[in-house]
């Protein structure tokens, strides 16, 4: 899987439960490497979830979100087989996007 984004989206009665785990260093900029130099900040700033053309959840993150970040939320609606689009952009302008099917 080339994407950094792992999603588990499960239709659960009236709501869809979403968990996501993203491979990203989330460097805060406060940590030094072996040479004593600060590792530059490199972290996801915005993570967006879209279903049926509209945003169902948006996360704005700072440097205090853990490495390989995780978030869980639920939204009303969403049926098995629907697409859920997940995208992020970080402070360096890097980004990733993936679309999964709700289970």
């Amino acid at each position, binding site marked *: 899987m080339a994407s950094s984004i792992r999603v588990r989206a499960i239709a659960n009665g009236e709501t869809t439960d979403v968990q996501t785990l993203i491979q990203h260093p989330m460097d805060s900029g406060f940590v*030094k490497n072996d040479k004593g130099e600060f590792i530059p900040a490199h972290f996801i700033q915005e993570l967006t979830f879209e279903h049926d053309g509209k945003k169902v959840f948006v996360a704005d993150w700072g440097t205090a979100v853990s490495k390989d970040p995780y978030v*869980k939320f639920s939204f009303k609606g969403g049926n098995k087989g629907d697409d859920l689009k997940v995208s992020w952009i970080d402070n360096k302008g890097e980004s990733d996007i993936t679309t999964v099917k709700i289970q």
Partner: protein
Amino acid sequence: MTIPFNGLPVTRRLILSGAGSVAIAGLGIISFRPVAALAAANDKYPDDAFRQKDGNEAIKLLYGRSAEPSDRIKLDAPEIAENGAVVPISVSTTLADVTTVSFVVPENPNPLAAYYRIPPGTMPNVANRLKMAKTSNIIVIVEAGGKLYSATREVKVTIGGCGG
């Protein structure tokens, strides 16, 4: 932790409660942080708030007003973090019309940790994993029905999560 903020002009209250399309040009009475306050009311990434070194300042920048403690917010966090680098923290609430949820860790170098936008139809429950530099309160702020509520919990941290 409460920030006194009295006598807000009506138009400013409207902006802060999310009626985002109100134009601010020519209102004159708006002074210091209209743009940043708008950040909370629109889709802009609240960069200034994330850069704040002080928890109170971050909340002020993000929301422009103070939050009142609410027992309708359930904040789950460990008593002692097994490792400050990955502290699982979650929140749920019975408050209605929740539009945003944010987490503030006052003892962190940048206290604002995360800010979540909850569109209509999305449940007001969020679970995430945060870094904590040292023992600190975790403050969750829930914006519901245009008002601001909070809950606080202390998490002890023995191994700091910010490295070094």
